[in-house]
C-alpha cells in the first residue's frame, strides 16, 4: 500500500464514499463462512468464465498459474466474510492486482470476475435469508460495497504497474535520444574542424571554388548540429515533467531580449511591449523558449528597414491571450498550419537560416500547458502569432 501512496486514511475515505459502514462490517461478519461454503461452486464458475473467452483462455495454459489463481480466489471468498477490513485485508487486494498484472490478466477481464461473483452470490444470499427480505437485501448490498472497494484497489495496483513500466520505457527512449545526439556530434566536429583546417593550411592551393566547397561543408556540419540540438530540446520536452511555478512574463521577455541582443541590434529592431504582461503558472525555461522562438522569428523573417515587433497580452475568459505581431514578410494562408510541423521551412536556407523546429517546439510547450497557438498573416503584411495559457492550473 505504501508503494502506491495509499494509507488507511485513504481507505476509510473510500469506504465512506461507498457508504460501507460499521453496520455493513457486522452484516458481513455474521455471514462468516458463507463464501467458503459456496467456494467450490464460485471458483469453478470463475474458472469456466475465464475459459470461455479466448483471450483469458490463453493465460490459463500453465497448471501452476491455474492453481495459484484458484487458491487466491478461495482465500478471497473466505476473507470477504471474516469481518477484518484492516490493512492486511486491503494489502491482499492489492496483491491480487499484482498477480493479475504478472500473468497478463487485464482489468476488463477481472472486473467481469467481481460481477460474476456478485451475480452468483446475490441469489444465494437472498435464498439464505428468504424469510427476512430486508436482511437479505442489506447483506447483498454490503457484499456489493466491499466488491467495489476491492475492485478499485486491484485496478489501482494494475495501473500503478503499467505506469511504472511506461516510465521505464520513457527513460530508455530518453537515454537513446541522448546517446544518439551525442554520438552524432562527434563526427560533425571532425567535418567542421578539418574543413576549416584545409581552408587555413592550404589557402595557397585552393581557388575560390575550393574554399567555397569547404565552407559549404562547414555550414552543413553546423546546421546538423543545430538540428540535433532542436531534436534534443523536443525530446526533453516529452519526457521532463515541467516545473510549474508563477512566472513573471515581463522578466522572461527582458531575458529573451538580452539573449537576442545581437540580432536585435543588427537589424535595428524595435521591440514594443504594449501592456504590463501577466504572471502565468508554467515552466519558466519552457515559456522562455516559446518567447525566444517567436521573437527571434519576428525579427528574422523581416526585411523592413525598421523591423517592429509588438507584444501584448489580454484576458480571454479563463485564459491569458498573448500576441506577437511583426511587420515582417508575412505567411501565405496555405502554410499557416504547416509551419508548426517539425523541421518545416518555407524559405531556402540561403535566404533565412534556421532548422524549422522553433514553432514545433512552441506548439508542443503551449499545448502541454493546455493552451493553443496559431497565426494570422498575409504575405507582405506581417504576421501575428497568438497563443493562450490557462489561468487556473489543473493539477
Amino acid at each position, binding site marked *: 500500500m505504501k508503494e502506491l501512496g495509499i494509507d488507511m486514511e485513504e481507505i476509510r475515505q473510500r469506504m465512506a464514499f461507498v457508504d460501507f459502514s460499521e453496520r455493513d462490517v457486522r452484516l458481513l461478519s455474521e455471514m462468516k463462512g458463507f463464501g467458503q461454503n459456496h467456494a467450490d461452486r464460485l471458483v469453478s464458475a470463475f474458472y469456466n468464465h475465464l475459459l470461455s473467452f479466448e483471450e483469458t483462455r490463453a493465460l490459463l495454459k500453465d497448471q501452476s498459474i491455474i492453481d495459484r489463481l484458484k487458491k487466491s480466489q478461495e482465500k478471497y471468498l473466505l476473507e470477504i466474510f471474516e469481518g477484518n477490513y484492516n490493512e492486511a485485508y486491503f494489502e491482499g487486494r492489492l496483491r491480487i492486482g499484482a498477480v493479475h498484472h504478472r500473468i497478463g490478466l487485464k482489468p476488463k477481464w477481472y472486473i467481469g470476475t467481481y460481477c460474476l461473483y456478485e451475480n452468483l452470490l446475490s441469489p444465494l444470499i437472498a435464498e439464505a435469508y428468504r424469510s427476512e427480505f430486508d436482511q437479505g437485501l442489506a447483506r447483498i448490498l454490503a457484499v456489493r460495497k466491499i466488491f467495489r472497494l476491492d475492485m478499485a484497489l486491484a485496478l489501482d495496483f494494475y495501473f500503478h504497474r503499467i505506469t511504472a513500466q511506461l516510465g521505464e520505457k520513457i527513460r530508455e527512449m530518453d537515454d537513446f535520444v*541522448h546517446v544518439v545526439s*551525442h*554520438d552524432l*556530434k*562527434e563526427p*560533425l*566536429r*571532425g567535418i*567542421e*574542424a*578539418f574543413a*576549416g*583546417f584545409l581552408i587555413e593550411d592550404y589557402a595557397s592551393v585552393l581557388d575560390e571554388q575550393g574554399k567555397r566547397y569547404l565552407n559549404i561543408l*562547414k555550414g552543413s*556540419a*553546423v546546421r546538423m*548540429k543545430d538540428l540535433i540540438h532542436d531534436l*534534443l530540446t523536443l525530446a526533453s520536452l516529452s519526457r521532463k515533467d515541467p516545473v510549474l511555478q508563477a512566472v513573471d512574463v515581463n522578466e522572461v521577455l527582458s531575458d529573451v531580449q538580452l539573449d537576442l541582443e545581437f540580432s536585435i541590434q543588427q537589424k535595428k529592431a524595435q521591440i514594443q511591449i504594449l501592456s504590463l504582461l501577466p504572471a502565468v503558472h508554467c515552466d519558466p525555461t519552457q515559456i522562455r523558449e516559446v518567447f525566444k522562438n517567436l521573437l527571434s522569428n519576428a525579427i528574422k523573417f523581416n526585411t523592413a528597414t525598421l523591423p517592429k515587433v509588438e507584444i501584448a497580452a489580454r484576458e480571454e475568459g479563463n485564459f491569458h491571450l498573448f500576441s506577437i505581431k511583426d511587420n515582417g514578410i508575412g505567411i501565405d494562408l496555405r502554410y499557416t498550419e504547416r509551419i508548426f510541423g517539425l523541421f518545416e521551412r518555407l524559405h531556402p536556407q540561403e535566404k533565412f537560416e534556421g532548422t524549422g523546429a522553433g514553432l514545433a517546439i512552441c506548439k508542443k510547450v503551449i499545448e502541454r500547458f493546455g493552451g493553443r497557438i496559431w497565426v494570422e498573416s498575409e504575405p507582405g503584411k506581417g504576421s501575428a502569432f497568438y497563443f493562450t495559457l490557462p489561468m487556473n492550473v489543473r493539477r
Partner: protein
Amino acid sequence: MVANNIHSVKILLVEDNPQDIEITQRAFAKGRVRNELIVVRDGQEALDYLYHREMFKDPETAPRPGMILLDLNLPKVSGMEVLQQIKKDESLKLIPVIVMTVSQREEDIVKSYNLGVNTYIQKPVEFETFMKVVNAIQEYWILIATLPPGVQ
C-alpha cells in the same frame, strides 16, 4: 610562492578520439601560451600515467601535469572513474581537472561536480568556438588563476 611559470605548465589530455586529439592539439598550438600537451588514450593509461605504473614506471617519462583535460567517454576505465580516483587521492586531487565532453546530461554534470571536477565544459562542434574555449581555459587557469603548488 611566485605566480605560475606559465609556459612550463604541462596539460594532460585524456582523449580517445584521434580527431578530437588533433583538434585540441591544434587549438593549443594556436593559443596564447605554449603549453605542452601530453596525450593519453584511455582511462587506464591516464591512471597509469598519474600513478607512474606500467609504461610510465619511470617518473621522468610522466612529469606531473599542471592541469588535466578529461573526456568522459573513454574506453577501459571511464572518465568518471578517472575523475573519482584523482579527486580521492591526496597527492593528485589538487590538480585542476577540466572535463571536456559531449554529454550535456544533468546526471553527468551533477556527478562530475559532486566528485570535485573544477570545470565541466561541453565540447563545441565548431572549431572557432573550440578555440575560444581553449583560449578561455588558458586565460583563466594559466594566466589569471594561481595554480596549486606542486606544479612545475
